[in-house]
């Protein structure tokens, strides 16, 4: 690898703009400038010096700030497209065909196109994730590309800089101090130390520096973002993320999905509403009640060590808790959230076995709709057999009654009734809202519906997310980096006293020149220095005088 050897004999890597040791401008471009570019202190940046192999080319692509900004803009536009119509996960239909129909029905041809292009599931599409991934790579590469050489150069700063470096700084002074010329450097040291600068001296030169860590702000906030993005990806690793949901009926105890060895008992589901008069938007949307509270009172149980999976006989109570929105049940790494509810699910139906003519009852039976029995015995000669149970009766298909789901939404029964009068049994088909059917001829007895018991169901979500602490760390590092980079600045002052007593001074800050000048004003007075000049401002004023831009 080629090297650049400066006049001061220091060997610099190729691409260095300002000698690492003495600060002399090494390129003709920098030599021609009246104020050198100090953003990266003139260091050699990999992406600006290597461009041969394919690796170099990829590295250079991602290290470019222009590419980074372009990726931000592309991400931003892509993300906005996803909000034109609702995303699929907010649409309450199950199958692909239903989804396609939904977008077509509600949003017409454009909706159909939106669905077919995959924009309705944009955020999990491969191309969106690739864009975000590229943005992540860009943050990493750009930070390493500039951050590491900058760190090296800031760590190895020399006190003495060459005149050609000093003269090309933005704020400079050169001249004799008006008083105490023999003590000028001491006075400068004194003043700068008072302003909380770190001061180093070497022979007749002085270097004062303050707030160097501010230069690391951008790299710190990028590090935070990378940690954050990394944590988001960590979700895909098994064990880091659990997302399950379950329906739990009142009075029911069930194994918790995704939380092995734990059982949850639903003591009660509570729905409270405000008893206010509807007003405003509430009225306009025709919503009469506003929910006040969704709550499930639960008891969490744990299986004893060594128990067989799914066994519920040997449970230890862990805790009781009232799960509400904004107040999930937390245990170990898991949280259980109140997400949904279903009111008044049928639980038990009571029937009377009656003589149709006399309406005399032979006895009552109660059918547990989630766990019905095969037969209900009233006495020696009287019993009711449940020949067929259809929890969610949806009509007949080829003469056979059908159930739509295993949930007791619309129960129907085929009973066989045995009484002393009818020892062979009579068959009756009973469903809600329809007269009983007697497929095998006229019956003497009937099952008369007496009453029903209902219960509520809670929809709960179980989540474990071990990435959250890492996200927190990433977020905090990001915020720290932004604050450090925005509110602190790196101020430096180089001074050299020539043999005739002339002071040559140069100052630099990465931002807030106003603050830097305030420090310099104090210094000028204290050390009796000649007035400094701001070369950039002078140049601008010159330009403004030449051009006139008024309405």
């Amino acid at each position, binding site marked *: 690898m080629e090297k650049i050897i400066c006049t001061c004999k220091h060997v610099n890597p190729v691409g260095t703009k300002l000698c690492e040791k003495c600060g002399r401008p090494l390129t003709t471009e920098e030599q021609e400038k009246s104020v050198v570019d100090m*953003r990266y202190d003139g260091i050699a940046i990999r992406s600006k010096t290597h461009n041969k192999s394919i690796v170099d080319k990829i590295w250079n692509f991602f290290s470019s*700030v*222009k590419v*980074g*900004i372009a990726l*931000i*803009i592309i*991400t*931003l536009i892509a*993300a*906005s497209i*996803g*909000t034109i119509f*609702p*995303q699929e*996960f*907010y649409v309450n239909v199950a199958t692909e065909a239903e989804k396609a129909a939904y977008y077509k*029905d*509600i*949003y*017409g041809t454009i909706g159909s196109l939106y669905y077919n292009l995959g924009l309705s599931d944009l*955020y999990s599409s491969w191309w969106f994730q690739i864009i975000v991934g590229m943005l992540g790579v860009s943050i990493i590469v750009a930070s390493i590309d500039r951050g590491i050489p900058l760190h090296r150069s800031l760590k190895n700063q020399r006190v003495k800089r060459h005149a050609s470096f000093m003269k090309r700084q933005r704020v400079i002074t050169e001249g004799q101090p008006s008083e105490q010329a023999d003590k000028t450097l001491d006075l400068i040291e004194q003043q700068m130390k008072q302003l909380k600068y770190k001061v180093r001296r070497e022979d007749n030169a002085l270097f004062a520096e303050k707030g160097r860590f501010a230069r690391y702000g*951008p790299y710190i906030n990028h590090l935070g973002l990378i940690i954050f993005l990394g944590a988001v990806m960590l979700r895909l690793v098994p064990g880091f993320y659990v*997302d399950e949901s379950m329906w739990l009926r009142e009075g029911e105890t069930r194994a918790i999905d995704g939380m092995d060895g734990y059982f949850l008992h639903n003591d009660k589901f509570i729905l409270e509403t*405000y008893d*206010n008069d509807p*007003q*405003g*938007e*509430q009225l*306009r949307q*025709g919503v009469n009640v*506003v*929910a*006040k*509270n*969704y709550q499930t009172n639960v008891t969490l149980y744990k299986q004893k060590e060594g128990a067989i999976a799914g066994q519920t006989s040997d449970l230890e109570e862990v805790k009781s808790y009232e799960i*509400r*929105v*904004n107040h*999930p049940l937390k245990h170990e790494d898991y*949280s259980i*959230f109140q*997400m949904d509810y279903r009111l008044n699910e049928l639980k038990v139906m009571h029937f009377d076995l009656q003589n149709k003519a006399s309406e005399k009852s032979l006895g009552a039976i109660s059918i547990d709709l989630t766990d019905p029995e095969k037969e209900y015995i009233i006495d020696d000669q009287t019993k009711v057999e449940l020949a067929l149970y259809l929890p969610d009766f949806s009509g007949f298909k080829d003469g056979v009654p059908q159930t739509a789901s295993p949930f007791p939404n619309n129960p129907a029964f085929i009973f066989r009734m045995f009484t002393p009068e009818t020892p062979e049994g009579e068959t009756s088909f009973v469903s809600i809202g329809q007269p009983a059917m007697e497929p095998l001829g006229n019956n003497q007895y009937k099952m008369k519906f007496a009453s029903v018991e209902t219960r509520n169901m809670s929809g709960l*979500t179980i*989540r474990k*997310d071990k990435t*959250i602490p890492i*996200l927190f760390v990433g*977020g905090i590092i*990001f*915020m720290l980096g*932004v*604050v450090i980079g*925005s*509110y602190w600045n790196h101020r430096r002052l180089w001074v050299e006293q020539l043999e005739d007593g002339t002071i040559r001074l140069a100052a630099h800050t990465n931002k807030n020149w106003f603050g830097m000048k305030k420090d310099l004003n104090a210094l000028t007075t204290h050390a009796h220095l000649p007035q400094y000049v701001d070369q950039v401002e002078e140049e601008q004023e010159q330009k403004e005088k030449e051009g006139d*831009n*008024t*309405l």
Partner: protein
Amino acid sequence: MNNEQYFSISSNALLLAFILLLIAIVPFGFATKSRHTVSWKSALALTWIAFILQIIYFVCRWKAVGHAPVSNMYEFMTFFGIMLIGAVLLISYLYKQWSIGFFALPIALIVLGYGSVFTNKAAPLIPSLQSNWLAVHVITVAASSAVLSVAFVTGLMYLLKTATTKTRSTKWLELVLFNLIVVVGFILISTLCHLFFSPQTVEFINKGGQTTVATYTLPIIISNDTEVGIIKLTTSINAKKLNTIVWSFLVGIVLYLIIRYTTRKTLCEILKPFTLRMDLRLLDEISHRAILIGFPLFSLGGLFFAMIWAQIAWGRYWGWDPKEVWALITWLFYAALLHLRLTKEWEGERTAWLAIIGFGLIVFNQVFVNLVIAGLHSYA
């Protein structure tokens, strides 16, 4: 004192503050031109009193409704306006530049006026909003949006100051100002109709085949029904919202034409003289500084706190809800702006335009996403 008394104190304080701010524009206008301290001092005094009254509004309303009054469109917009006044005072004192108020106060008044169009009744909180994070999240979002809006105001001033006749940039600037007039039009027509027009209802069959009733608070031009209005639309477009937009533009255009024909000047020409005493470089610096304050604050409130609350309430910190997406878009936009400024030397006119677009994104997220795009944040 009981809740009703607190409620009436809060409403009266807010109204008085509005009037004081309206009056304060006049001395601010003088302050931009004359060197007499009396003008900017009286302007500042009025602004301070208004700000204190607004704080009284906020505290009393909190007491009256029992939760942080930032839970519906009226409350949010009002608080946004209050924060905007606070941000203007802060930036004015940091830079000792009093003419910012002349441009910022009308913006704050538009925000407050926009909020006042919505019902000021306090609605009870639905379960997901019953959390201390409501106050933490919304207050930081409003504060950051307000500081970023100052960057918009100074950006506007920068562009007005550099505006020359008949350039493309000046035409776009005129369009930005015209849009503000349209919002004023919306506020005017809504307030007038609220006072003098009784709402009309229209019944129509919606896409799902159900009969829907739409209550129009403005006179009907456009509807989904054949019987009423001048133009009839298919049911795939919400005629009620379009009706409001059409009214706003009509009134806005009338207002704009009145201004144009009475003064014989464009809005840019009218406003430009008020920027004469401002220094361009300083305006650019203030804009940048406001973004440097607003951006981390927005990251904190709009993303970080938002994620924490979403995790607690909904069990997931990120769900690609439209509001979340637009907060991310706003954040990405300001990140891009800062990169352009810090590494690509974008300054002055270019960043001023970006600050205006940024404000547009904030307004879009607070208004459009709530009212038009359905999602978890659709309130009021």
